[in-house]
């Protein structure tokens, strides 16, 4: 019996809704703020071949991690995939790969003894061992310093937990209670998807669901092709400099050539710097995610992500570049470089899709790790969090202030009241700043300043603040934004300024001041309307001196 188009529509909607439900389950049951506040995880379902059907996610950078993880499972386990299995893995260089902190969990879904789908989630664990708490540093030289490496294996084998494998993991990580809790949250989220997928097959039958799935993928492709038709055709170029690799001082040149035709979107990163000694390296899976992210942003941001919607993409990049690093290059701060791949395409295309892209933004997620003992309870704690900052101005609009970087998304800052209770530091301020930058007819959005005052002597801080030397780019005559940086103001008054820092010891009374970028400006500042400038002055977004110097004053 042929299934009518309306029923197929309903099955398609139900498939997409499964991603949402998995996402909610994971967020609600997680043990660590990096998951339940930062929502640094992604969930999704694929078909039996590993084609992405639906994805629910909190961050944008995991778009290629779900399907590629399944591809590796299929390759490695082939016919040994059984009902009741759950696979685990964190290999950064292969399918699903980002950095060791992101653990993948995949549950095969069977219907009438036939493998029909996989439920997958990929989540950032608070700590996966390695040289420093939080497992990311800005100065590792090999992956072996970055934590436990877990090639894909079965953590649950036909319904039986493999305690031996779990014990290996527990023995290698610093806060196993949270991470094991998060692992169970992930298994539960996959379980929700398994039930829902089976219900669909039970209700509508094998053939109807598979037809709906194919249609869903074709629909994704049709939607983006429609958008692709509206994009300018031709070749577009951009290049930029990454501050450094965390070890040396040398900037790294990266570049892209975009070719857009009626049915292809080709991103060629040839000419970008080779992989580095320091941990900013990004793997090929990360590069795929980067291109998918920006492609989605310029085509149709609201269409649910699936493999079909990415069919027009082609990626060209030689092996062993900073975008396509291979073992044993360290990768723990891969996102800095992944976001450069996004930002290069952004920069090349911003003048051509002004309603979807503005000037450059903070770019770095400005991630920090604070590890030490709680001032009141004495218990050891690890705080890992990304920070909000400024976005670029655009055609007809000022940039957004105090918003997470493009790599994040449905990401929540950690409330001050929870930070103080949970980590025992004192927060002095969380506010917009007026560091110079981002001036334009439409100015960049404001970055923030966040001060943590230490109440004990044993905290260490790690932070990766890219775009410290080369700030967010202005466009159409607007000025560049302000840099991201992390300052340490010692109790004795001395003041250090860092772009990247690993394990810096801070003592009671010291203040760690995290300052994020103001976004790039758009258009000649002299053209900014005076009424807007008066509002900026009244609201303290610009100082009188900045208005005088960059905007030609308030006039009469």
């Amino acid at each position, binding site marked *: 019996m042929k299934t*009518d*188009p*309306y029923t197929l*529509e*309903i099955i*398609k*909607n*139900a498939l997409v*809704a499964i991603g949402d439900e998995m996402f909610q*389950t994971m*967020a609600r*049951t*997680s*043990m*660590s*703020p990096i998951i*339940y506040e930062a929502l640094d995880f992604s969930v999704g379902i694929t078909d039996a071949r590993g084609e992405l059907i639906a994805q629910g996610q909190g*961050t*944008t950078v995991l778009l290629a991690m779900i399907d590629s993880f399944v591809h590796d499972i299929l390759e490695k386990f082939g016919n040994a995939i059984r009902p009741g299995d759950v696979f685990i893995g964190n290999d950064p260089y292969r399918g699903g790969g980002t950095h060791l902190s992101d653990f993948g969990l995949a549950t095969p879904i069977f219907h009438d003894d036939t493998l029909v789908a996989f439920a997958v989630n990929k989540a950032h664990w608070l700590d996966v061992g390695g040289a420093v708490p939080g497992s990311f540093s800005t100065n590792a030289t090999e992956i072996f310093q970055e934590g436990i490496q877990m090639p894909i294996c079965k953590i649950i084998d036909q319904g039986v937990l493999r305690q031996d494998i779990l014990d290996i993991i527990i023995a290698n990580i610093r806060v196993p*209670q949270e991470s094991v*809790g998060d692992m169970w949250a992930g298994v*539960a989220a996959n*379980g*929700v998807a398994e039930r829902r997928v089976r219900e669909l097959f039970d209700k509508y039958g094998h053939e109807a669901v598979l037809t709906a799935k194919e249609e869903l993928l074709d*629909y*994704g492709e*049709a*939607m983006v092709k*429609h958008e692709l038709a509206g994009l300018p055709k031709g070749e577009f170029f951009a290049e930029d400099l990454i501050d450094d690799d965390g070890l040396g001082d040398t900037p790294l040149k990266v570049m892209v050539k975009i070719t857009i035709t009626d049915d292809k979107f080709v991103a060629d990163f040839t000419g970008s710097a080779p992989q580095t000694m320091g941990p900013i390296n990004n793997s090929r899976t990360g590069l795929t995610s980067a291109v998918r992210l920006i492609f989605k*942003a310029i085509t149709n*941001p*609201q*269409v649910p992500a699936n493999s079909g919607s990415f069919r027009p993409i082609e990626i060209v990049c030689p092996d062993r570049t900073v975008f396509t690093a291979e073992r044993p290059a360290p990768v723990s701060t891969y996102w800095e470089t992944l976001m450069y791949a996004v930002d290069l395409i952004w920069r090349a295309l911003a003048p051509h899709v002004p309603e*979807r892209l*503005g000037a450059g933004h903070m770019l770095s997620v400005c991630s920090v790790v604070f590890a030490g003992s709680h001032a*009141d309870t004495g218990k050891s704690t690890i705080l890992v969090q990304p920070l*909000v900052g400024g976005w670029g101005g*655009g055609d007809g609009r000022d940039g957004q*202030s*105090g*918003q*997470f970087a*493009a790599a994040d*998304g*449905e990401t*929540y800052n950690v*409330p*001050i*009241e929870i930070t*103080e*209770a949970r980590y025992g530091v004192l927060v*002095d*301020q*969380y*506010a*917009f700043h007026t560091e110079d930058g981002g001036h334009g007819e439409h100015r960049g959005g404001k970055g*923030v300043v966040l*001060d943590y005052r230490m109440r004990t002597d044993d905290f260490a801080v790690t932070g990766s603040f890219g775009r410290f030397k080369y700030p967010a780019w202005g466009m159409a005559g607007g000025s560049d934004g302000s840099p991201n940086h992390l300052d340490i103001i010692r109790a004795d008054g001395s003041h250090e300024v860092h772009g990247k820092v690993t394990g810096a010891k801070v003592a009671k009374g010291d203040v760690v001041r995290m300052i994020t970028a103001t976004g790039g400006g758009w258009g000649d500042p002299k053209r900014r309307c005076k009424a807007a400038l008066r509002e900026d002055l009244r*609201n*303290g977004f610009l100082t009188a001196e900045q208005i005088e110097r960059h905007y030609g004053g308030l006039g009469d």
Partner: protein
Amino acid sequence: MRVATDVGGTFTDLVCYDVDKQSGRVVGLRTAKTDTTYPQFDEGVMNAIAKAGLDPAAFDFFAHGTTVVINALLSRKGAKTGLITTKGFRDVLEIARGNRPDLFNLAFKKPEPFVPRYLRREVDERSTYLGEVLTVLDPATLDPILADFRAEGVEAIALCFLHAYVSPANEIAARDYIRAAWPNVSVIASHEISREWREYERTSTAVLTAYVHPAAKRYLRTLQTSLDAAGYGHAPYIMQSNGGIDTVEGAIRNPIAMVESGPASGVLGAAALGTLLGEDKIIALDIGGTTAKCSLIENAQTRITTEYRIEWSRTNPGYPIRTPVIEIVEIGNGGGSIAGIDAGGRLYVGPESAGASPGPAAYGRGGTRPTTTDANLVTGRINPANFLGGEITPDLDNVHRAFAPLVDRLDGDIGSVARGIIRIANANMVNALKLVSLNKGHDPRDFTLVAYGGGGAMHAVMLAEELQMPKVIIPVNSSVFSAWGMLMTDLRRDFVRTQVVLLAGENAARIEEIFAAMEGTARASFADEAGSGDLALRVQRYADMRYLGQEHSVKVELPDGGFDAAVLAAAIERFHVTHEREYTFRLQLPVEIVNFHVVALGDVPKHDPEKLPVTGRTPDDAMSGLRTVDFDEHGVHEARIYDRDRLEPGMRFAGPCIVEEAAATLVVTPGRTVAVDDYGNLHVHMNA
């Protein structure tokens, strides 16, 4: 006489009845509907009273629900508001949580703060999370801020200091100082509205409360004056989002609690109906013109949450308000939802709505795209002769024109497209119903669907089929059901307080102490307040619990009084069970309380509705004719059409059929049986 009025977006509804003094039974139930009057909502209320021919001097009880708060918020017609925060944190309101739910939209725009930066000011004061005051506020430092606020024409001030949920002393000092210095300004301190941690959510709550305070206060005072002048001798009660009513004084003190009062009273009505009929597991479904709302009720208990937001959507973070609200899932699918085809060839329904103007294509008022209502008309489910209660003749030519592009694209006929639209609208609503049931570990097959609102009866039976629910109930007067719900509520105040305490034996006494103190506060809050003095007060205890290390919590009901080791052990087990039901797993980890939740209830006398007389008519006597109706996969049938006004208790009849009343149409598919109960409610038995 007991009277309830519900001011909605379009209509102001009134329900009233008398109670026979001898028998204690309800007599003379009456309803009235008038247009809502913007912005003087109280005029509409007095109009409804006049239209029903009532004399307020004869009222024994008057309950009132109003959209004045949500209206002020959504239309941005509140007061010019200033905010005062702890030094270093005035930007918390604008930074918000920094999230971008529209993930891939790199031109995303955050919601604008309700208070611009120049009206956000800071004072030197500080408390810790342990409740110690590190820096005592010097109230004189408020003077320059107040002077600036006066000069700017500020009408309301919100205060939110860090950790005021546990240490409100500085907020109290600031509030009292401002009240003394500037008696005419509205002042709201965050801890008065919310005692939960998370400073952005509390700041937002305080700001939105202050923003609506002057308008809400003006409105409630005017209403009270009008009622007094008309001779009403008692205190009116105001419907709250928590499903209870409060006194006028209580509502003025905490006006934001009225924000979702309309939907809440409908859910409460469903709960009360469940109690009356002995149905302990209910899903309430309200289908209106633009949205469908649903909520789950167990043993007459509604689920309460403080995780509420206005203007929230999949792409918009909205604005949080930490006030107790009945948990409702709302989706953009109602009678006016527009159907269309997107660039990828997908047929969709909603969330865009044709609203009342231009309305569905059948209104013939300029609507050019088909809506769910038009599809129901095409399938014959709506009677063209009884369209909008017979007020207008549907413009069927315009309906055909509106369907033409879809018929063309989908290569079908108007009937198949109409069936498709209804099927997709139903699937959307089924998803919402799953969110409140399956998603929380409840099996819909154990529940009865109570459907009301203009579209509830139209879709309910097909939704119940889809979810295999055994029974649907369409209440009497389903179009003014929310107003009736207000007559079935109690006086209710919720007190929620963040205090993180491990559930361990040695903490039992401390937990009891916290609950006891909160109960004292709850009881004291009613003292000497008009309307609450003579009611019997009782309290209920709940705790939001979680595994140590988790953030999100699960609400667990606790027994009243005497929290000891045994209660503690039972509470932990109850938490495990609830967690496992909602999230499929349990952990061998310690459990902690994060929020203490006390509900204070004042029992309001309630009365069962009147039983209808039985005259011995048969269902055939209530039949108004036959009509060809398309029941989709159940086929096309000559369906019997019943006139609800002529039905009486004890009647039973089978589908396929349609039951029509002035403002609603019940569609019953083949194989279902309709039974009329003693009160005139329609029970659709799905399997018999």
